[in-house]
């Protein structure tokens, strides 16, 4: 039992991130892809790594208001990610729709569709906020292992 807990502590130090762009304006994606990785903030020191395939992912970062066009594909993609996984909604779009809030073409808020664990508000959020969100997601993920 104790050994298992130890192994879980070790495993929690390797969260791999996967980004789903659900119709974002790309602002949040730029923050995720570049700012969070630059020398100043560097998510890799938490053990994170952006992975290309949903099958390798542990923490899912969703951006955008979930447009109707992309909804089914995004849900399918989410199913492809092996458990245990944690969902982080990045930006104000997934929370309320943000600047797209009254649009007929979006399905925000996305927690009707995805089990969102952490919200990172902001338009786009600051990199510190994103790192904070990822750190919170790691804590949740540790409990789910």
């Amino acid at each position: 039992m104790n050994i298992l807990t130890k192994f879980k502590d070790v495993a929690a130090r390797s969260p791999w991130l996967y980004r789903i762009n659900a119709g974002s304006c790309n602002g949040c994606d730029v923050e995720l892809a570049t700012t969070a990785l630059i020398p100043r903030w560097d998510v890799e020191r938490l053990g994170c790594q952006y992975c290309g395939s949903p099958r390798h992912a542990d923490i899912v970062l969703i951006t955008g208001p979930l447009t109707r066009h992309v909804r089914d594909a995004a849900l399918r993609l989410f199913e492809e990610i092996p458990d245990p996984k944690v969902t982080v909604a990045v930006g104000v779009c997934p929370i309320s729709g943000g600047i797209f809030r009254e649009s007929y073409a979006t399905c925000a808020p996305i927690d009707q569709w995805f089990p969102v664990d952490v919200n990172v508000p902001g338009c786009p959020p600051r990199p510190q906020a994103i790192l904070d969100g990822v750190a919170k997601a790691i804590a949740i993920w540790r409990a789910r292992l």
Partner: protein
Amino acid sequence: MSTQAALLVSVLAFPGGLFALALGLALKGADRRFAARLQGRVGPPLLQPIYDLVKLGFKRTMVPLTATSQLVFLVTPLVALVSMLYAAALIPVPGLPAPSPQLGNVLVLVYLLAIPGVALMVAGSVSGSTYGAIGFSREMALMLAYEGPIVLVVAAVALRTGAAEGQFAVLSLTEIVRHQQVHGANLFDPVLWPALIAFVFFYPANLGIVPFDIPEAETEVLEGPLVEYSGPALGLFKLMSAVKSVVVLGLGLTLFFPLVPEGPLGLVVWLLEDFVLMLIGVTAVRVGIGRMRIDQAVAFFLKWPLVAAIASLAVVVVV
């Protein structure tokens, strides 16, 4: 029976097996950390590859519905890893007992080095994923380009050593090392310099490192053949690539520069050489340049390393 037990130990513990695994993971960790430092970042902890493996152990292995054969899908990573553990047992490591001649010679090693590439191809095509299929075709093109030069490089070294020893060709790696300890390293033999150049380019291509990580490019084909693998099966592939980096580094050191002091000090020097070669020859290059396109890579291999290897072989045969 005792020789069989010794063989088993050499494949599972020293110098294959656990030793190669530990060294390979340490090399990977150092590589990631150093790459981050070169970019001015903090970087992951040195033990990060081990954390990753433990994590993968906790995840679920999913077999896609599109997979043509569940069995092949799940067995392929195992085959790749076992072939590399075997190959690691063939590498003479200074300070450790010499590999048993019963295990095979450098020809066996060249064949074993081809297996992970083939396993990746099988993995990519059996997964039934489009990205896997693209990875498969890229891997195959790249393999066709780099397998020729490496065979010629090994042949050149074997013939050169054989000529000096009064035989046709020396295929035993232990013999090649002994020859160089007496007559000086191949690194200083101008006849073999073209072969050395070819080997330097073979190294990143075989290991799938930038600029030749074309089959597994995660930004282009979502890690290609590995796209459908998750959990422990993916971990086996990661282990395989860790051992492979040790095998290819060890092969290079054996063929060109096996001169180290006797005894345990030799082992320390050999390990240091591994790390220095990895950090300077791989990490610095990887951080500094981008990825080639597959057609550029194939054209490049058929132009320079192949020509260099053929030239080296021709000179060896003539001289």
